[in-house]
């Protein structure tokens, strides 16, 4: 019994003296309210101060939080989803820029390899819903590699939804009203031309 107690004490002492082992921590901020810029994420600040330097922290978040510029998340591994919009932009040296947006009009540029960018099947625009990507990467509020840009350097990209064509129904009522009104306008212009011509002739006579 005494031997067992000594072994347990020795193990406890060793665990205190040896460096902490690295382990992954996942923090979920995806449902958080952004709140005011000054006071949000104080808990995250505390956490980032107290966490072990070897911990791999991955923060589940969303574009609105990233686009609102969050110092607490700076240089942290973040994970979020977003729709690729516009074009896949060539950044040179085997890299691409893919701009992703959420439903609330927030966007962020993601720097990724050519291979990762191949997940983008569709780019969102008026006629297309873009590919929704699940992105994990390092978040920078002032990226040294890109002259102070706010961006994410992707480490892992996966496809959530390929996206596709969007349909916009033509309103027939508006079409008919438009044609009728254009015809009315032309008729009024014709009346004006006639009246002006008569007025000109009267003036001369």
């Amino acid at each position, binding site marked *: 019994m005494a031997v067992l107690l000594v072994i347990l004490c020795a193990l406890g002492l060793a665990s205190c003296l040896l460096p902490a082992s690295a382990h992954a921590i996942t923090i979920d901020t995806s449902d958080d309210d952004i709140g005011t810029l000054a006071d949000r994420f104080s808990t995250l600040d505390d956490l980032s101060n107290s966490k072990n330097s070897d911990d791999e922290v991955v923060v589940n978040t969303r574009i609105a939080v990233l686009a609102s510029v969050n110092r607490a998340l700076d240089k942290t591994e973040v994970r979020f989803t977003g729709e690729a919009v516009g074009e896949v932009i060539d950044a040179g040296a085997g890299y691409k820029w893919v*701009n992703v947006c959420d*439903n609330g009009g927030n966007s962020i540029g993601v720097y990724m390899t050519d291979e990762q960018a191949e997940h983008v099947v569709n780019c969102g625009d*008026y*006629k297309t819903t873009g590919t929704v990507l699940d992105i994990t990467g390092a978040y920078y509020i002032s990226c040294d590699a890109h002259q102070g*840009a706010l961006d994410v350097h992707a480490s892992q990209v996966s496809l959530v939804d390929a996206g596709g064509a969007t349909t916009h129904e*033509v309103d027939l009522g*508006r079409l008919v009203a438009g044609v009728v009104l254009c015809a009315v306008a032309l008729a009024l212009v014709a009346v*004006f031309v006639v009246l002006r011509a008569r*007025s000109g002739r009267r003036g001369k006579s």
Partner: protein
Amino acid sequence: MIYRLHIHDWRVIAHYLGILIMLVAVAMVFCFVVALALGEYKTAVDFLLSIGISATVGAALILFRYEHGSLDWRQSLIITGLCWVILSLFGALPLSMSGQYANYLDAMFDTVSAFTTTGMSLALDTDHMALSLALWRAIMHLIGGIGVVVIALALGIFGTGAAAASLYRAEARSGQVMPEIRQTSRFILRLAAVIVVVGTIACMIPLFLNGFSVRSALVNGFIVTASAFSTGGMSTHSMGLMYYHSWPLEVIALVLAMLGCINFVLYGDLWRGRTKNFFKDIEVRTLVVWVTALVVLIALAIKGSYFEDLGAMLRRTLFETLSGAFNLGFSTMYTGQILYGMGSGALFVIILSMIICGSSSSASGGIKAFRVGIVARSIAQTIREVLAPDRARPRTFYYQQGKKLVTPELVSSSMIILLLYVVTYVVGAIVGVACGYNALPAIFDSVSAASNTGLSLGVASAGMPRVLEVTFMLEMWLGRLEFVAIFAMIVELFAFVVPSKRMRWRTKKK
């Protein structure tokens, strides 16, 4: 004594407003054709209906006077003041129908912002906006930058002579390249066309190299050019200029904005080889001094921020400052980066940069370099008068199309307009604070709206209080037309609606 406008005057005003509304309808036809070509059929129908409504109302108003006739100075002022309001009402129709805006007022806000070349936007989802609609916003920028009245004058709608000159001045324009206003207007239109074509090609090169298709590079290149040259700032994407991740494009945008900030009349002098007129011009010199001072100030103020790296400093903070100074409104930073990354000193410099902006008779808004130059010279004159012997009467001159004397009247009018701008900045900021915003963003956005710059710290965004939205719209109008035409319009409307013997309104005798 103020003469009350007669019903005949209102018929003349309605007639010319009708013509201008028809012009907007014609501009929409271009976007309608583009929408059809791009297969954006729903938007094409929205444009068709907007054309129908605008053209019908315009044609009906034209009928108010079908006889030949001319305009006087007061009618010109009212037309100029009213046309920017009324054209915004009709220009907002396709935006409102698109579903991109929460309500008509928001669409109207964007239209006012586009026509006044401000660039603030309340669009809900710019990334999924129809290209033809984005093109419409860019065209409104161009129309506003060149000047609604200038375009109408170039097309010969207002004829020539005194009436044309009145309209030209009423739209806060001054100086002539050619003997006739119509020729000057045509010169401005041709100049804008050349710059837009060259600018679009220049913008297409970096876009094309970054993997954009030819069509996409062309559309984006045109929209960036139109927006930058007219010192607007609206874009095809919610990230604005940051979307492109291209510093050459940012440099081109700044150069285009700088061109849009210079008095258009000076280009005529350059064209004719009169380089002296250009380099000795009071506005060019004031702008050079002002921009140099801003660059030095921002370099000092940026200490301690997280943009101390030279690359970041040049691409982010210097761009932001020059964007404000050239009235551009494009940004290479997120709101949070500006608010918390730059420090209060740098933020103050950016607010400062937006106050003055470009030259008179340019695409830009703000107090204008001319007035600041005149006030600076009057201060110098005051000091010289104090130091001069009793009998000496020192005189101060400035150069603009020749050497001219700084008169007390000129100083007074410059000071009045300068004061009105400051009052407008302050009033907008107070309304912003009253609506619950922090003082700094409220001041920033108010200055941005009244100087027609378009940079924002998030106050001007979808869902903003309606009182503030309307205040910002008024600020944009007042800033664009430099108060006089708007005040004249308000007084005349008031006099027409509420005639009072005590105020000695008089009916104009014909």
